[in-house]
Every structure is written in structure tokens, then in C-alpha cells.
């Protein structure tokens, strides 16, 4: 008996330790520190359901432990035959009715929150962003503002932003744990959800529906900035001149190489509804390359030389001529200079 209890206790301590060491996870990624409306709604229900269910768990464990201690067969009881009880109407009613009440306590706020988060009656009065999920990147189309971008999605804080989501290939799922729960991005119908970030920040977004070999590398960012900064960003993006010549010679070579190597067949620079590959208008401002690499020139050159090694199964591999080291270098220089706005991930802090 003692050994059994002891082991259970050490197990409990060990797991508790693991949790404490891991903390609540990385800020602006974890769902445990909600910083947006949807995440807060979910968190409220997570806390409520945890409390209700822990109550049940504790009762079960108490009865279980007492039963084991009191009624374990002891020495000298080998021939003891306990009373054969058929049941007990009162007890059985109690443990049927109480769970029904507990379920109701949880069901009512769940239904209320479900309808609240699905409410899109006033969508047209707010910012609308059309999102296309692709293997393995995200396209963002601010249809009213006529801005297209990818990977980094800019939103103003304190406002509802409606996302209208469709997939171009397989099912993806749009998830920014710190701001909101997820919604699937299906190929057959537009799914609408709204998000609202409470404070400025760069929030980590992930694809949550299994979509192929690079599913785990389909990250994106939600960059929440103040409404003023958001207005400035929109203005900057709208006034981009896609034909502008870069300043230095290397970047100019890069622009030429970009055009020669049929990059433009898929990647638009400036406002363009076409989205075979990510729109690169503000590439130099982006927080990551290919969704998850630090935005250094070395990483970009590696990516341009052999994207398959970095993101297996991507659609860019094999769709452009082999690049020389020099070409890749100049294209990288050109792309990293595409910085149309002063509003960057740094503007949002962290």
C-alpha cells in the first residue's frame, strides 16, 4: 500500500515539476496567456470546464483512495465474504443528477460563446481580409484597400477584423493561439471568423490542419499595431511603385535576375490579385523568410538555391531555372530592400 501511494505521489511531483519548468509557454504563441477576444472567450471556458471537471476528479480520487485503504483484503480475511449489495437507488440517483447539473453549468456559457464568436452580421462595417491558404504559405488580400501581401498580416489593435478564408489546395487551419482559436480553411466554402487583438505585438500563427510534408513549417505572423500605425501602413502599401529601381548596383542586378528567371510568373510585387506564389511587395519588412527562418541574407540565399531542403514538398522547387550563387545573392539583396513602409514588425514591439 505504502509503495503504491509513494509512487503515485512521486509521479505527481515529477509532472508538476515539468509543468512549472515549462511555464505557460512562449509569450504571443501560447493560448494560456490570451491577448485577444477569441482567445479570451476560449480561455474562460477552459478555466470553467477545468474547475468543474477537477471537482469531479477530486471526488472520484477521494472515494477511490478511501475504498482501497479501508477495503483491501487483510491478513486473516482470506475467507471473508462481503455482503452482496445489489445497488442503492438514492446513491445512484445522486451520481446521475449531479453530473447533469454540472454539464448544464458548462453547456449554457458554451452555447452563448459559440453564437457570439460566429456572429458576422456587422462584418461589412469592419476591416475585411480575404485569406487564401496554400501549401505552405498564406495569402492576405485586403480587398477594400486593394493591398495584397503574404505571411505577415497587419491588423489594428482594439478592432474586430473579419477574415474570409478559402484554400487553394488542401484543408488548412488558421490558428493564432494568443489571439483566437482556430478555424479551418477549406477548399469549397469561405469560412468567416473575426479576430481582435487587445495589445500591440507580433503574434505567432500556425497551420493546424495536417496539409502535407511541410505542415509544421507553415507559420505566419499577425502583427497588431495601433490604429494610427495601421492607417500609415495601408497608405504606404497603397503607394508602392513596383517598378522603382533599387539604389545600388547589386540590387539592380537582382531585379534584372528576378525578371529573367521567371520569378514574376508567380510572385507579384505591388498590388495584384494573382497569387500563385507569395506576394513580395513588402518582403524586406517581413519577420521571417519562408515563414520560419530569420530574415537574414544567408537564409534567403539558401532558400533561393534549394528550397526543397528547407521546406519539403513546396511548390517553388523546380519551377524556375537553377540559380548561380551570384544570381541568388543579387536577388536576395533586391528582395530584402523591398521595404515600402516604416511600419514593420518592430513597430509592434517584440
Amino acid at each position, binding site marked *: 500500500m505504502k509503495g503504491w501511494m509513494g509512487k503515485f505521489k512521486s509521479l505527481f511531483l515529477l509532472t508538476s515539476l515539468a509543468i512549472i519548468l*515549462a511555464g505557460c509557454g512562449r509569450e504571443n504563441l501560447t493560448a494560456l496567456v490570451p491577448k485577444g477576444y477569441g482567445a479570451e472567450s476560449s480561455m474562460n471556458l477552459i478555466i470553467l470546464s477545468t474547475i468543474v471537471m477537477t471537482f469531479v476528479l477530486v471526488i472520484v480520487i477521494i472515494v477511490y483512495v478511501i475504498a482501497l485503504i479501508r477495503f483491501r483484503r487483510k491478513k486473516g480475511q482470506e475467507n471473508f465474504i462481503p455482503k452482496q449489495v445489489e445497488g442503492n437507488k438514492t446513491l445512484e440517483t445522486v451520481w446521475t443528477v449531479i453530473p447533469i447539473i454540472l454539464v448544464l453549468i458548462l453547456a449554457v456559457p458554451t452555447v452563448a460563446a459559440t453564437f457570439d464568436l460566429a456572429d458576422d452580421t456587422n462584418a461589412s462595417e469592419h476591416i475585411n481580409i480575404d485569406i487564401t491558404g496554400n501549401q505552405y504559405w498564406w495569402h492576405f488580400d485586403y480587398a477594400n484597400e486593394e493591398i495584397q501581401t503574404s505571411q505577415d498580416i497587419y491588423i489594428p489593435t482594439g478592432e474586430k477584423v473579419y477574415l474570409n478564408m478559402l484554400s487553394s489546395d488542401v484543408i488548412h487551419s488558421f490558428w493564432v493561439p494568443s489571439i483566437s482559436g482556430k478555424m479551418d480553411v477549406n477548399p469549397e466554402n469561405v469560412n468567416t471568423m473575426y479576430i481582435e487583438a487587445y495589445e500591440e505585438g507580433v503574434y505567432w500563427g500556425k497551420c493546424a490542419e495536417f496539409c502535407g510534408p511541410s505542415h509544421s513549417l507553415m507559420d505566419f505572423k499577425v502583427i497588431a499595431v495601433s490604429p494610427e500605425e495601421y492607417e500609415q501602413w495601408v497608405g504606404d502599401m497603397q503607394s508602392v511603385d513596383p517598378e522603382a529601381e533599387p539604389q545600388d548596383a547589386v540590387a539592380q542586378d537582382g531585379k534584372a535576375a528576378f525578371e529573367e528567371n521567371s520569378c514574376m510568373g508567380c510572385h507579384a510585387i505591388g498590388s495584384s490579385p494573382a497569387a500563385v506564389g507569395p506576394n513580395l511587395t513588402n518582403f524586406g519588412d517581413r519577420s521571417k523568410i519562408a515563414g520560419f527562418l530569420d530574415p537574414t541574407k544567408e537564409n534567403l540565399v539558401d532558400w533561393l538555391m534549394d528550397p526543397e531542403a528547407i521546406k519539403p514538398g513546396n511548390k517553388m522547387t523546380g519551377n524556375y531555372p537553377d540559380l548561380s550563387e551570384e544570381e541568388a545573392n543579387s536577388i536576395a539583396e533586391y528582395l530584402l530592400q523591398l521595404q515600402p513602409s516604416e511600419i514593420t514588425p518592430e513597430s509592434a514591439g517584440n
Partner: protein
Amino acid sequence: MSIAATQKRGFGSFLWDYLTTVDHKKIAHLYLFGGGFFFLLGGLEAMFIRIQLIKPENDFLSAGLYNEMITMHGTTMIFLAAMPLLLGLMNAVMPLQIGARDVAFPFLNSLGFWLFMFGGILLNCSWFLGGAPDAGWTSYAPLSIQSPGHGVDFYVLGLQISGAGTLIGGINFLVTVVTMRAPGMTYMRMPLFTWATFITSVLILFAFPALTVGLFLLMFDRMFGSAFFDVALGGNSIIWQHLFWIFGHPEVYILILPAFGLFSDIFSTFSRKRLFGYTAMVFATMLIAFLGFMVWAHHMFTVGLGPVANSIFAIATMAIAVPTGIKIFNWLATMWGGSIEINSAMLWSLGFIPTFTIGGMTGVMLGSSVADYQYHDTYFVVAHFHYVIVGGTVFGILAGLHYWWPKMFGRILNEMMGKISFWIFFIGFHLTFFVQHFLGLMGMPRRYWVFLEDQGLDMGNLVSTIGAFFMAVGVIVFLINIIYTAVKGEKPGDDPWGGRTLEWATASPPVYYNFKQLPLVRGLDPLWIEKTEGKGKMTPAEPVGDIHMPNSSILPFMMGLGFFIAGIGFIFQVDHSAWLIAVYAGMATAIGSMLIRSLKDDHGYHIHKEELEREAD
């Protein structure tokens, strides 16, 4: 010379015996062997997954191979390990518990096993024939349609064949329970494990057709150019999710209800007490099964079905907690006031209660749709379903194996090793999966081949991988125990546990006709009644007479083999039409065997009264 005594035989005749057997006890051995083999295979795949996730951005497995591992781990564990192991226990015990000499359709019983086995082998052949399926065990369209190579084709045909076997097995058990109960064995006197087998069979009967339909549509889409799930051609990929989960959710209860049943028998036996609230237990099981068909869309809360559908399915899901809670409290009440003996079988059952309660607790949490927007497709879900499927089904299978091993094989598993394997596995299990609840909420989606550095996920994943190694060691100790027992195990006699139900009134292992005379059942726990109020053994319900027995047959094996060959042909005929020869040859073998079975009368044989009387009591 006893007719039941095993004689010295060559390996050839031993093998032939098992290939042709229609005896439910030997088919149980086959199921346990087949399911056990696939369990080890699935466990190996699990270890590869955990090694890949031991540290951030690990490169132990490539992305493609990792996806094949997770797909095969899930598919193998559900379809080829957990279900067959349960079917093995049902086969071994249920006919004995109702006082029957065999199942209703012994030939179909054998056919069900061989279809499962050949389906499982076909699925695993994919590893050597161009790559395993890589679209997840749920195989969502359109990913499963776009998946290159033949992996998903193996998934479709392997599951189709083994699913047919399961369906046949389910129908067989239904008919057996309805028609073959011993005199006096009314429905409300059946042991809970028999009830669970009965209700599980109903679930199989209604759930598997949905999978069959889904798999056929997927097969046509991949092989014959149809477009049921192809959005570009007017199809709809969400339909797959509905079909899959209309099967898939009842499937979860197909896995857990038999475990509930055997835990009920074990708690009752080792507390030396009648099961508390028998009637409530039976109806709770039925209610769980019924509600199990009403909740499939809780796997689809984030699909965008709208708030009405999400609310209805959320409430239906939470409602399942009520009958499940009734069962947990009834088990506790069964132990309360009893005389509890703690041995290996009971340890696995006692380990089940806290583990499964945590799994049920997270189940209700997942049922809250808005909270699920965060949990869905993360490691929280992975943790939840391992708590219920490992903590419920696997603990249940291991409890059942320890409990019925002496009945099935005549030898008792070693207690010491049984306890060691339990503790190592139990601690390893909680180390592996408890922390995954938090990983999920900290932003780790499931089916991630790598997780990135500096995301706060390193520690949790490391702990989880360490736990997985503990689980592996626990399983290895159990395997050593099996080998040790086979060689040196004690022979404990017919009724080592002070059993209450009819299986303990037979020999260990039972003679091939189970009961010389069918027993007369006088109430719930019939053997216990005779022990406390009667002569200590069952009263016969009939005089000694001729016993009608079925003949062995190789035809079920041949049918399975035929479908296996045809399956290979179907998969590769897309590449070259010469493979159609395999389709024709396989189908000819299968249909030819069916024709022989239909046209050639097989009346079985009789064991004559005189032979039975000659055998001393």
C-alpha cells in the same frame, strides 16, 4: 486417452490446425497473436515519432517518413491492434460466459479473422512497395487524394478488407448472444463483458458501413477518376469528414465499451462482491453507445458548420459524461465494502480509474466547442485520446489478459513481472501524455514533424519522449512474462480467482466443446450462486447427449488470400493493366472458395454420447 488431451504433433500439423480452425478459442489465440504483433509494430512507430520529437528541429526522420509513421501508428493501433486484441478476448470468453459451445457461425468467425489479418498485412506491405500512406489515420480529402504514390491506396484496400472482417465478427457475436445463451441465461443475467460484447457488436454493425462507403468513394476518386471529394470538379471534401467520423466516433466506443465490460467483471471478482447497480451499468452502456452516434461532428467544430450545429454537438458530447460517470461511481461502489485483492489484473484495472477519469475530464473540456477552437488538432487532443484509448482500452486489454490467461492457456502469468510491467508502463504513460495537454495549449499542433526552437516546447517534448521509453520497457517486461509463463508458468487449476461467472466453471483451458452438458443458470453470477447456495458447481440443464460440432475448413483462409491478391492487383492496375491479372486471379480464388462453401454441404460431425461418457469427470 482423453479426447481433449493435446498430442505430440509436428509443426506442420500444428500450423494446419490453426489455419483451418473454426474453434472460437483457437481463433481467439489467432486474434491475440495477430493483434499483439501489430501492437508491437505500432509501438515501434510510436517510438520513432517520439525520438524525432526529442529535441527541436530534429532530423532523425524526414518529413515524408514522419508523416508515414504517424499515419501508420494511428491506423495500426486502432484497426490492427486494439480492435483485434479485444475481438480476441471476446472470442475467448464471451461464448463461455453465456454457456455456449461455440459462436453461432464458426466458419464466419474464422473468415472474420483471416480478412482482418490479410487486410493488416496488405496495409503494411506498403512499407516495402513504394511507401506507406501519409495522409494521417483520418485520411482527410483532398490531401489523401493528392497524396502521390500508392500509400493511400494501401490504406483504402487494407482497411476495406480488414473492416469487412470486423463487420462479419460483429454480426457473428450479435447472433451468438441472441440465440445461444444457456438455459436460464436471460439478458439481465449476462455478465457485463458479454453485455459489452453485444453492444459493441451493434456499434460495429451500424458504424462500419459508413467507413466502407467512405473508403469506396476514396478508392474511386484515386483509381477510377471519380470526383466525390474533388472540389474543382464539383465534389465536396467535407463529406469525407462526415463519413469518416460517423464511423470514427462510434469506433472510439467500440474500443472502450469492451474494456468497461471486462473491468466490471474484474472489479466484481477481486472485490468478492456483486457488481453494484448492475441494471444501471447495462443501461449506461446502451446510452453511451446510443449517444456515440450523435456526436461525430465534435471532431469538426472548426470546420465551419455554424453555431447551431456546434452547439447541438457540444451538448450531446457533454451528455455522454453522465452515463460514463455512472459507470465510474458504480465501480467505486462495487469496491466499497468489498474484500479487495490487488494482483496484476486488478492493478491494471485500478490504474484505469484515475487515468480514464482524467481522459473523460478532458473529453468534456473538448466538448465545449469554443474551448475546442483552441484544443482542436493540438497535442491537447493527442493527450486526451491517449488517456482514453491507452488508459481505457490498452489497460483493459492487459487487465483482461492477466485475468483470463489461465483460462485461455492453462497457465497463470507471473505476478512479480506483472506488477513490474504495470508500474513501469503506468508511470511512463503519465510522463508521456500528461505534459502533452500543456504542449497543445502552448501552441504545438499535432502532426508536426518538427517543432521550432525557442517556442517553449523543448522541455515538455523531452519529458514526453523519456516517458515513451518507460512504456516500451513495460511492454518488454510483459513479453518476457509471456515467454516465462509459457515455459515455466504455474498451472493454477480451473478457477484460480474465485470466479463468479460461467467461464470459470469450465476446464482451463476448456475442452474443445466447452461444456459436456449445458449448465443451468439460476441468476446473475451463476457460478457464485452455486458456490454459496448450491453444490459448488453448475447443475446440468440437459442429460449427456451427442454434441454437434463444425468441421474445420481452409476456405476462410483462401478467401482472405484471394482478397489480398486482388487488393494488390487493384492498387497497381493503375500503373499497368497487366496487374489486372492479379485482380482476376484473386477474385477467382475468393469467389471460387465461396462457391465451394455454398455448393458443398458441410453438416459438421457429432461427438457421440458414448465418447463423452467414456471421458471421466
